């Protein structure tokens, strides 16, 4: 399979770029932040639904477009360039992926159409600690007479505030992790929010003996770990797509700045000390493009080395986004560290993306383990 995007995927990418430039430029990100950290613009979310982006990875069985992850990846990359805030990652990449890979037909029929319509949103509640570790789940799901009682504390829940339901990872009585769908209005659910470095809202959610029925279980018995791994792979690859957008945009703004800014009577881009560093970034970005398209295609093909490719993607983008956003700050000089210019937004968003679903070290370790060393 050629490592290029098809004509159709290119059309989607171009239309996304055009739409976002018009309706969600970086200024919107600034406005939202300055409006008491508003999580996203409701009107934009409706437009995004109308563009069909929420349906790209949903199968035709549920009236989705079944267009695939390569397509969604192009959209996420463009959203990275404009730092667009929308619950597309939380509700679709995480929420819909969990349901897509579930065998619980009832939940799929109920929720997938509502998620596509943007009517309802789901947030994914997995993390419990300061560091990403999918094995360190303490939250419990104790068997009750007609279902389960869920208790535990979750953190780093993306777009958790305002979500209609949570997908909660909890251990059943046999110690196995399982996924449950929990209504946010259920008794025993309480939520607090934090604003992180990227001006995004992340929730900590407490579940105190929350009752769910057996029908609310998303993962089959014995299948929780597999499903979590599928979500981890999908999330890592989709985050890598968004990170690629940030890397490309931060780099391009920096190269433009090198061509404009004059010091010592010359444009600073003529200095070899900066030229070589720019060329090194260019080279690393070439690698980033390759792993992202490879991994996205593998998601659509359900390749058997998804664990490997997802970790390669998240590790490589994690390493490169750190390099590029740091160099972007340094090369912009004094104005780069002011709030007046946008380049700092990319740097801040990058740091959060680096940590979500495992940082460079986590994924490098996972990659090494995949190859049995």
């Amino acid at each position, binding site marked *: 399979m*050629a*490592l*290029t995007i098809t004509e159709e995927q290119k059309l989607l990418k171009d239309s996304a770029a055009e739409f976002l430039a018009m309706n969600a430029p970086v200024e919107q990100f600034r406005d939202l932040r300055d409006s008491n950290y508003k999580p996203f613009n409701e009107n934009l979310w409706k437009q995004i639904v109308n563009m069909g982006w929420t349906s790209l990875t949903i199968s035709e069985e549920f009236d989705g477009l079944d267009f695939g992850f390569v397509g969604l990846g192009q959209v996420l990359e463009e959203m990275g360039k404009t730092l667009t805030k929308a619950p597309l990652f939380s509700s679709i990449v995480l929420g819909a992926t969990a349901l897509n890979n579930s065998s619980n037909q009832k939940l799929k029929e109920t929720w997938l159409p509502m998620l596509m319509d943007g009517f309802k949103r789901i947030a994914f509640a997995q993390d419990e600690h300061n560091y990403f570790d999918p094995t360190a789940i303490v939250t419990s799901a104790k068997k009750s007479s007609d279902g389960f009682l869920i208790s535990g504390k979750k953190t780093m829940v993306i777009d958790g505030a305002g979500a209609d339901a949570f997908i909660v990872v909890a251990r059943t009585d046999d110690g196995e992790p399982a996924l449950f769908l929990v209504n946010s209005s259920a008794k025993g659910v309480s939520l607090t929010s934090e604003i992180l470095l990227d001006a995004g809202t992340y929730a900590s959610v407490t579940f105190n003996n929350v009752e769910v029925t057996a029908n609310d279980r998303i993962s089959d018995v014995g299948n929780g770990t597999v499903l979590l791994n599928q979500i981890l792979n999908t999330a890592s690859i989709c985050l890598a797509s968004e990170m690629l957008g940030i890397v490309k945009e931060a780099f391009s703004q920096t*190269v433009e700045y*090198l*061509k404009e800014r004059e010091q010592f009577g*010359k*444009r600073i*881009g*003529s200095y*070899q000390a*900066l*030229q*070589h560093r*720019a*060329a*090194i970034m*260019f*080279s690393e970005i*070439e*690698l980033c*493009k*390759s*792993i992202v*398209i*490879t991994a996205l295609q593998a998601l659509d093909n359900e390749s058997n080395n998804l664990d490997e490719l997802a970790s*390669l993607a998240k*590790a*490589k983008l994690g*390493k490169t986004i750190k390099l590029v956003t740091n160099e972007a700050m340094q090369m912009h000089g004094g104005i780069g560290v002011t709030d007046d210019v946008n380049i700092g937004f990319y740097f801040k968003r990058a740091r959060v993306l680096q940590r979500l679903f495992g940082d460079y*070290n986590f994924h*490098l*370790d996972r*990659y*090494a*383990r995949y*190859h*049995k*060393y």
Partner: protein
Amino acid sequence: METTTKKDLKEFRLETRQWLEENCPKSMRLPLKDSTDYYWGGRNASFASEDQKFWFEKMLEKKWIVPYWDSRYGGGGLSPEENNILTQEMLRIGCRKPIFSFGISMLGPALHKFATEEQKMRFLPDITAGKTWWCQGYSEPNAGSDLAGLQTKAEDKGDHYLVSGSKVWTSYANKADWIFCLVRTDFDAPKHSGISFLLIDMTSEGVSTRPIKLISGKSPFCETFFDNVRVPKENLIGTLNDGWTIAKYLLTHERQMIGGVGETDVRKAVHKIALENLPTKDGILTDGFLRPEIAELEMNDAIFEMTIQRITDEAKTGVNAGALSSFFKYYGTEQNVARMELLTAILGKDGLVWESENKKAASETRMFCRSKGNTIEGGTSEVQLGIISKRILNLPS
């Protein structure tokens, strides 16, 4: 027009697979240890083993020494798709290349693009038959990174050029039959505009060579001296004083070659060597410093491979990949140098052995030394980064 269908390609793959299985000797499927394992061809060709001879002659008979060149010049006439399949199938079972030849990887593409038909018929068939060992005369003692500052002169003497000067870093000039050379034919023009591309028979009177001993202890390079050497005018390739165009074109091929693009030789994974040499617990390397270094190197190797694939695929859709050869050269050689550095660290004392009964260890140490030249030869990493920043990023001078 003849079109190759998918079905034809499938058959071609099956036939190729079977033919390789039947004809490639087992010893020719082992990874190459160093340059002594290569077959170089040429007037004074000698084979290192019977298997090597058998393999070369079989491939020659099949016209697969250069499978993708036109059959007029002794090539196999394979389509790009067929050639890809052949490469994949050779890689699959680890077949060595039947010959290592700068005629194929460097001069050939330049002749295809710039030579007259007569010149092509004169030189290309000897390359595909492995009869000519070509070397490259580019760098000079005072023209390294600043290649266009070269001073070897070729004076017009009516029916011939008279060449005087010296070249350095000519690969295997002491063994080569012919040299392709950049010479100055106009001393008054700006430096890029007075250079021509000349082919010179190494047996011509006035040509002499002196091997350069490298830090690896080996001498793959020479100094080459030209003392009033008469070169027939028909040996000029392309237009007089426009040799820089050919030089640049050829350098893109050299850079891709040094960067490992199109490399089909299988190298043992670094982590496998590490598992054989370093302590483990539950199958996982316990060295908390080397392990992430190994993983990062292999991560970048894997993604660099994908990048070669991606850029090749994009070039097919018409995206111009021209200046990207500098990226390939820069990245591929930096990776190789990092690989050798890491490998010697993994091997511990064995990674330092210079001479020993244990030949394997000694060869790693010498390859490590040799690798230090990778980021210099064919244009230093700094030259490549300069090209990327000027030609791709359009940064100001």
